[in-house]
């Protein structure tokens, strides 16, 4: 062990990677117990992409109409196209109310009912108004509140650090190595427990709602460590991405009553989901939009449709949906009070991720064996709570609830266990990545990334086919080859964005291959994964989760049965 090679060596009970809702909630739980919690984040905590969530956080508070935990559970099972694990959903709905009340007690400025309680609005796939909201900046206020709580409880923050390798040995987590983005240099974080809460992997697509930071670093680290990923082929396309930019216009717009219309000014959802219309789940609405476009009914025959808010009126738009109004105005010069807003499906949420059990412990095989001291929560995890399709507002609830659960179990683990020894040569893998880019060849990261993103949007979108996916696999292989020759212009230590983007590209190329392999293997259509060549769901063969490893450079798959435990939630035809 050559710790002296690292500029810094830190010994900390619980190290948490990612400062979104899941990471901060876990850190808070650990810190409140009196143990030391450190959050390692590539951006300042309040820049995390949980802040981009707009519409709400799901909990059956029943503040504005009848609701129940059973109904929340039934909606989530059906929304997932029956793939989600029911033991996980049960824990989730049972904890959801507590999570929201806790947030309120921390000071979250929720929008209020007339009698001063938390207000709730309808959301797609939920059979009651269940989304607790703060205007259309719900994620933003939850994130800032949690950050402030973490400041109060003295969580240590390592802001602007990029994690480059996990330190694992004999199925025991021992810490990680991270690059100090601001000043340069590698740091060793020696820990008893490590949480991966690195968010989604939507930056593999060109049209995406995801932040620049969402490069799937956590999933790539796990894959590199020889551990599996789960259900990576399930990626949600959000129906109301701002045209061309892909950035999010919240489903809250439809929750408040907005329409989606085609070139003939028809509310075409009547053809696809007559009962729920615009408030069908996202997979259903995105497919409907893409079908309209493919059949020539996009606006002016082009690749977009309209989100129409005009009938909501100026007051409702400005009081309930001010962010949406500003985004349309700033980015497309469209005044949503007077004009319809051009939209298209945009890569949005990663249902797949790092497999874990209900205790958020990372698992390493279909039998559910765990890695000691390694945890995961939030979008980067796959518990699986969302199955093949997530319902809107279940994600903030997922991140916060399972973040807290992770914090509880990590605390317990840290109390019972001593620090495990670091593996020999802890810096080697991380140093190797940096050295290779600094001494690299003439290829540059940007054109490779752009080619990946363009092709992923073309082939791995709302509709998929074997031919397209085989081509995509070829493209990824070729780009992985080219990546071997990537060098960076910037050889400096301080804030080397060139280096960070090149490192992130390696992650994108790595997990994208898993997405395509999983999608090729899954010869059925379920939730967000729709194959034109296998348009039906096939519960006989595919009511199971995909597990994928990288072994000797190849992706190897295995499958585990979805957990279906309740007679009332057996798979049935999914209609809205």
């Amino acid at each position: 062990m050559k710790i002296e090679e690292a500029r810094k060596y830190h010994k900390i009970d619980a190290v948490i990677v990612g400062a979104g809702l899941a990471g901060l909630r876990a850190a808070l739980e650990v810190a409140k117990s009196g143990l030391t919690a450190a959050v390692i984040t590539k951006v300042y905590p309040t820049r995390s992409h949980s802040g981009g969530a707009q519409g709400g956080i799901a909990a059956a508070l029943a503040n504005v109409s009848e609701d129940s935990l059973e109904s929340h559970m039934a909606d989530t099972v059906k929304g997932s196209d029956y793939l989600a694990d029911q033991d996980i959903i049960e824990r989730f709905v049972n904890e959801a109310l507590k999570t929201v009340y806790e947030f309120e007690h921390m000071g979250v400025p929720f929008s209020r009912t007339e009698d001063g309680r938390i207000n709730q609005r309808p959301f797609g796939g939920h059979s009651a108004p269940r989304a607790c909201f703060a205007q259309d900046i719900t994620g933003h206020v939850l994130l800032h509140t949690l950050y402030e709580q973490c400041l109060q409880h003295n969580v240590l923050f390592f802001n602007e650090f990029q994690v480059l390798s996990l330190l694992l040995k004999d199925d025991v987590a021992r810490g990680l190595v991270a690059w100090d983005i601001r000043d340069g240099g590698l740091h060793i974080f020696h820990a008893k427990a490590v949480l991966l809460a690195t968010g989604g992997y939507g930056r593999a697509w060109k049209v995406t709602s995801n932040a620049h930071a969402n490069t799937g670093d956590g999933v790539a680290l796990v894959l590199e460590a020889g551990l599996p990923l789960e259900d990576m082929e399930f990626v949600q396309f959000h129906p109301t991405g701002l045209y061309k930019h892909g950035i999010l216009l919240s489903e809250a717009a439809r929750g408040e009553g907005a329409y989606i219309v085609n070139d003939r000014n028809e509310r075409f959802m009547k053809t696809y989901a007559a009962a729920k219309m615009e408030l069908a789940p996202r997979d259903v609405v995105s497919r409907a939009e893409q079908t309209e476009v493919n059949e020539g009914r996009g606006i002016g025959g082009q690749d977009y449709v309209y989100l129409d808010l005009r009938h909501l009126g100026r007051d409702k738009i400005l009081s309930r949906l001010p962010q949406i109004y500003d985004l349309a105005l700033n980015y497309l010069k469209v005044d949503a009070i007077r004009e319809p807003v051009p939209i298209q499906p945009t890569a949005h949420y990663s249902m797949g991720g790092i497999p874990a059990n209900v205790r958020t412990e990372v698992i390493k095989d279909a039998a559910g064996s765990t890695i000691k001291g390694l945890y995961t929560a939030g979008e980067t995890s796959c518990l699986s709570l969302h199955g093949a399709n997530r319902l809107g507002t279940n994600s903030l609830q997922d991140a916060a609830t399972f973040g807290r659960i992770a914090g509880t179990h990590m605390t317990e683990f840290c109390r019972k266990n001593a620090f495990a020894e670091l593996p020999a040569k802890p810096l080697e893998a991380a140093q190797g990545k940096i050295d290779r880019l600094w001494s690299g060849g003439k290829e540059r990261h940007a054109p490779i990334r752009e080619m990946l993103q363009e092709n992923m949007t073309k082939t791995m979108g709302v509709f998929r086919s074997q031919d397209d996916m085989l081509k995509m696999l070829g493209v990824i292989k070729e780009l992985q080859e080219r990546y071997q020759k990537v060098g960076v212009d910037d050889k400096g230590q301080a804030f080397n964005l060139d280096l960070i983007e090149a490192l992130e590209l390696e992650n994108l190329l790595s997990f994208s291959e898993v997405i395509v392999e999983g999608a090729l293997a899954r010869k059925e259509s379920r939730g967000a994964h729709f194959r034109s060549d296998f348009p039906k769901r096939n519960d006989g063969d595919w009511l199971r989760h995909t597990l994928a490893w990288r072994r000797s450079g190849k992706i190897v798959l295995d499958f585990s049965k979805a957990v279906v435990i309740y007679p009332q939630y057996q798979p049935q035809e999914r209609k809205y």
Partner: protein
Amino acid sequence: MAMIDIHVKILRYQPGKDDKAGWQDFAISVEDEATILDVLNEIHWRHDGTLAYRRSCRSSICGSCAMKVNGRNVLACETPIHRFGSKLKIEPLSGFEIIKDLVVDLEPFFAKLKRIKPYLIVDKPLPDKEFVQTQEQLEQIGESTLCILCAACSAACPSSWPNQEYLGPAALLKAYRFVFDSRDDGADQRLEIVNDKNGVWRCHTIFNCMEACPKKIKITEYLSRLKVKVVENSL
């Protein structure tokens, strides 16, 4: 959509290489609908990989990309180039130490936030469900919770430039946000902190913060209400 040629001047500083910051010129082509962030990406990805800047969400909510463009503090991601024409002058936020190029040291900014105890302080027993807060009570703080901590306000504040000890508009706005929250019991503690020569009295109602705020928060107004509260509280 059409491509246009633009001329971009960027204030560069590479630590270890440059003694001080200096201007560099770029002549590039971008779509006429491009944003300032698109321009920076174009330069970074195709012209000069050594350029450094912060960015993340692309949708004006994360607060990473505040910088000065043609003399105005803006969020690069939400600002279309047509607001400025074909000549752009891009530099880091004023009043902060430059780490590299457009990246400034925000540690002092976040440290100030911590000083005003930016969390709800509750002395009473917690209710089983939520605290009751009326829509009128929420209205008091609603706009102030929009703050994304981008630091555009502090960078525009002439009272902040010569005095690193001044709490500055963002931290004081946060103090307002909690002092005026109907659920909070910590007003006395916070008012004592801001009742200082480097607290709320250092604000000379210059209104620059308000003009710089990408979320159009009426910061100066809220700081004035905070001043009144300090006086009321000491009577």
